[in-house]
């Protein structure tokens, strides 16, 4: 019997050719890091990757155009178990490894930084703050609902006049007979306007403390900050407290001092360092595919040396960023992580992801500024991610202080 290659294989080959022509995503794994992952880590990564292909990529352009966070994805992400994934099952988590959590965020940000930001704030800021600093009653009251997506959380640390210097905050808490009275304002708060609870950091007798403020509390409002060039598929808000009275049991008992909110930010920055790799991988793949199919001077763009040099540098920086977060994940899992290590990965990966996005936009030529391609959107999003949760400069200063023993920012 002579067997011609079966129809399926032929179909597969045709699909592959078709895939080259369309935008079927190929994830860059130049150093075969896949081999270092556990089976569950790969399964989690692949699951989120196909979910993003099916549910995020088709709708994200329109959501960005409309300046709208796609709330229809909230419940689906909860059903997949994407909120608080590293927490114990008792609180609604799945107890996954730190690397699995990172890979999950990498895939979400391959979709859009706004979607990843939503998941980061829900998990690493709101849920983590309660998990790490809350009482058992607070944990049982809020964490399962946040994990199920029945409640949305936000995290208010940055104030209008205090970005890199959050310790200087003006938001205050005063003890009164029934609880506390909050006054002040927060800015640049992801999820703020539609969040059911806000983790709010305020000075009580001069010490920074954390409070859980429920939406609808008189004196609390969260107007949306519109008109952004970046993170358009994400809600950014102000939080305003005007004699906002909250009950005594809204205080997070274990959080005392600036180190508490910074511990939460460290979780989120870890996720950012992973997330931006996904955005960079998306841009690289788009530019690489485009370079191979677009012809100029009767040759594919990819045949020109200057394009190849760009692609090589992009792939190199992505591979370095992947190695950085993989090791960071191991250190976090082993409890050996310092916040300066996270700072290094945050600033490096954000900067390189932004560079990759800009190069991709360049390779795409004029088409790169249209909604037809994703790189322009990632590029604009990454401007925010480069700056939020600690600017490039501040993170370098933290590493500098660690290396020299001298703080250069106070």
């Amino acid at each position, binding site marked *: *019997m*002579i*067997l*011609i*290659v*079966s*129809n*399926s*294989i*032929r*179909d*597969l*080959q045709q*699909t*592959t050719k078709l*895939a080259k022509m369309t935008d*079927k995503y*190929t994830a860059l794994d130049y150093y075969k890091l896949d081999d270092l992952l556990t*089976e*569950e880590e790969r*399964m*989690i990564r692949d*699951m989120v990757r*196909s*979910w993003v292909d099916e549910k995020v990529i088709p709708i994200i352009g329109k959501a960005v155009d409309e300046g709208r966070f796609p709330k229809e994805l909230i419940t689906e992400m909860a*059903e*997949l*178990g*994407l909120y608080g*994934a590293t927490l114990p*099952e008792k609180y609604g988590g*799945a*107890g*996954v490894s730190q690397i*699995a959590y990172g890979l*999950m965020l990498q895939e979400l940000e391959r979709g859009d930084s706004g979607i990843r930001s939503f998941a980061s704030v829900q998990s690493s800021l709101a849920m983590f703050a309660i998990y790490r600093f809350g009482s058992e009653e607070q944990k049982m009251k809020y964490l399962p609902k946040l994990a199920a997506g029945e409640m949305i959380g936000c995290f208010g640390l940055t104030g209008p006049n205090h970005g890199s210097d959050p310790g200087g905050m003006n938001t205050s808490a005063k003890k009164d007979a029934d609880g506390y009275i909050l006054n002040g304002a927060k800015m640049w708060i992801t999820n703020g306007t539609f969040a059911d609870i806000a983790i709010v950091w305020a000075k009580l007798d001069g010490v920074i403390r954390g409070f859980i403020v429920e939406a609808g509390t008189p004196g609390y409002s969260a107007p949306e900050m519109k008109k952004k060039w970046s993170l358009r598929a994400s809600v950014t808000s102000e939080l305003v407290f005007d004699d906002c009275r909250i009950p005594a049991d809204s205080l997070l008992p274990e959080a005392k001092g600036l180190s508490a909110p910074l511990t939460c930010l460290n979780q989120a920055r870890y996720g950012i360092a992973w997330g931006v790799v996904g955005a960079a991988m998306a841009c690289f793949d788009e530019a690489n595919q485009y370079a191979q199919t677009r012809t100029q001077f009767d040759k594919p763009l990819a045949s020109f040396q200057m394009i190849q040099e760009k692609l090589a540098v992009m792939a190199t920086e992505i591979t370095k960023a992947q190695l950085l977060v993989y090791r960071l994940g191991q250190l976090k899992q082993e409890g050996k992580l310092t916040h300066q290590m996270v700072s290094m990965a945050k600033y490096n990966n954000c900067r390189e992801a932004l560079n990759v996005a800009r190069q991709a936009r360049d390779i795409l030529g004029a088409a790169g500024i249209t909604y037809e391609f994703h790189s322009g959107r990632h590029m604009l999003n990454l401007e925010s991610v480069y700056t939020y949760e600690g600017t490039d400069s501040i993170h370098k200063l933290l590493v500098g202080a660690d290396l020299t023993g001298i703080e250069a920012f106070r």
Partner: protein
Amino acid sequence: MNIAVLVKLVPDSTAVVKIGDDRRYISTADLNFVLNPYDEYAVEEGLKIKEKEGGDVTVVSFGDDTAQKALRTALAMGAGAAVHIKSSGGSDMLGTAKSIASVLKDRGFDLIVAGKVAIDDDCGAIGPMVAELMDIPHVTAVHTLSLVDGKLTAERDIEGGVEVFESTLPALITAEKGLNDPRYATLKGIMMSKKKKIEVVEAESFESKTEVIKMSYPPSRPPGKIVGEGVEAVPELVKLLKEEAKVL
């Protein structure tokens, strides 16, 4: 309802498939393997029936150790048990079907679900063969299934219409696209699948009566012809479509 689902690991549908050096099998280096897409419908259908009627879903795969990846994926989706029929040498269709049937026959399954076809070798033979060997009824390429009073009603498309089958149980069906919307494995499902044990059964060996002796690529397509541009090109195009391509 005691349900078995037959699953297979196949190359990812976007993979670039190359023929191996022996010219008798594909080269598996650098290929990403996934659960056969039609088997995803089969697993989903099994899970849906279990959730409605109670019972359990056991996933079954034949092959070398890589088959366990398909089983893990199905366990992560929610299957309760898994059986790996271990065979290192491989087998032809009938040999494979005999091995599977010999493992399934004494386990009291009420319903066996398989994918319509595995997208790698495109044979679509294992499901019906297993049913025949077990002497139970089967319906292939089912897109609508219901179970009432110990009987199944299965619908499948035929040219220009729909065929409706009724069958007693136990029976075997193969799943067509559209039977359902397969669920994603959740994070909890994936973590839980790690704790489930895969039962490994050595495959009973049956002689292969067919053998693949050669694999080759399809002939490359002849290059296209551009007859001109705009309206002026239409008469020539119509002429060629009539005389050369003979499609008009």
